[in-house]
């Protein structure tokens, strides 16, 4: 399962997907926020370019998830929308049962990672969760990154700047993706 954030996040994810051997990661489920118009489109372009190259690529699926919180949304209504996002995430996870989850923020991925984590705890499905912090995060982790790091929900958390590795020793410094 590949969770796509918006804009720059998707661009970074596409960069990573371009160097992954897709025949090992199959079937692929791309998930984007319901209000994000561009990300699934970029994923479709990537998938069709793979097919054009005649590689053995397997199948891809494109899904949307409700956002837990829009930018600037009030705290009170955020509780309701987060619950809806969690229920939707549960539904998506039951349908896909992914063995691998790739995400890089923003908050779109949190409900999915939380459900995946709970599934692991209760032995329903075991997913390896990989979170790649955005290149724009140099000195501090994003809220999503911080949550996944502190609660130890991600199996591996990657950072793109050495300062973050120093601050968060359990993270992995992998250089820049862009």
């Amino acid at each position, binding site marked *: 399962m590949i969770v796509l954030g918006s804009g720059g996040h998707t661009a970074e994810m596409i960069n990573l997907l371009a160097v992954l051997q897709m025949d090992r990661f199959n079937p692929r489920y791309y998930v984007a926020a319901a209000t994000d118009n561009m990300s699934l489109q970029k994923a479709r372009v990537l998938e069709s370019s793979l097919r054009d190259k005649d590689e053995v690529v397997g199948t891809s699926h494109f899904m949307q998830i409700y956002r837990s919180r829009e930018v600037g949304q009030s705290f009170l209504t955020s509780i309701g929308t987060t619950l809806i996002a969690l229920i939707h995430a549960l539904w998506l996870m039951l349908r896909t049962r992914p063995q691998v989850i790739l995400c890089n923020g923003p908050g779109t991925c949190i409900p999915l990672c939380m459900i995946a984590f709970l599934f692991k705890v209760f032995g329903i499905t075991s997913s390896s969760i990989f979170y790649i912090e955005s*290149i724009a995060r*140099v000195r501090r982790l994003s809220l999503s990154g911080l949550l996944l790091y502190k609660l130890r929900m991600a199996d591996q958390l990657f950072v793109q700047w050495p300062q973050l590795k120093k601050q968060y020793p359990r993270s992995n410094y992998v*250089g820049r993706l862009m």
Partner: protein
Amino acid sequence: MGRGSYIPMKSAGEDGFVSVDYFTFSPSIADHLKSASLVISHAGSGSIFETLRLRKPLIVVVNEDLMDNHQSELAEELAERKHLFCARPQTLFNTISEMDTENLVVYEPGDASPVARFINRFLGFST
């Protein structure tokens, strides 16, 4: 422009004045970037890397009053590494007049392969 209320005046650039044009969105912004000799941009990572990839001199303007601030970390770090210049709206004029584009360091594009190798190893695939 965008969500702001200021709209600049277009000017054809006669009598020694700078010619000014504006658009809110352009599908061919890549062409504009390619023909530019200097780019002044906000601190979005997409804008920054698109310009650096084209090896254009870049001034990133950071407005601390408006934004949520996490974007400025990237601009500041890249400025420290001499890949671009950072300015605030108040210091933009000085930055343009005093900048030395000869001393800018070319930004080498990143590489996602280390992450891919790590993931493959973690999952027990051969790298």
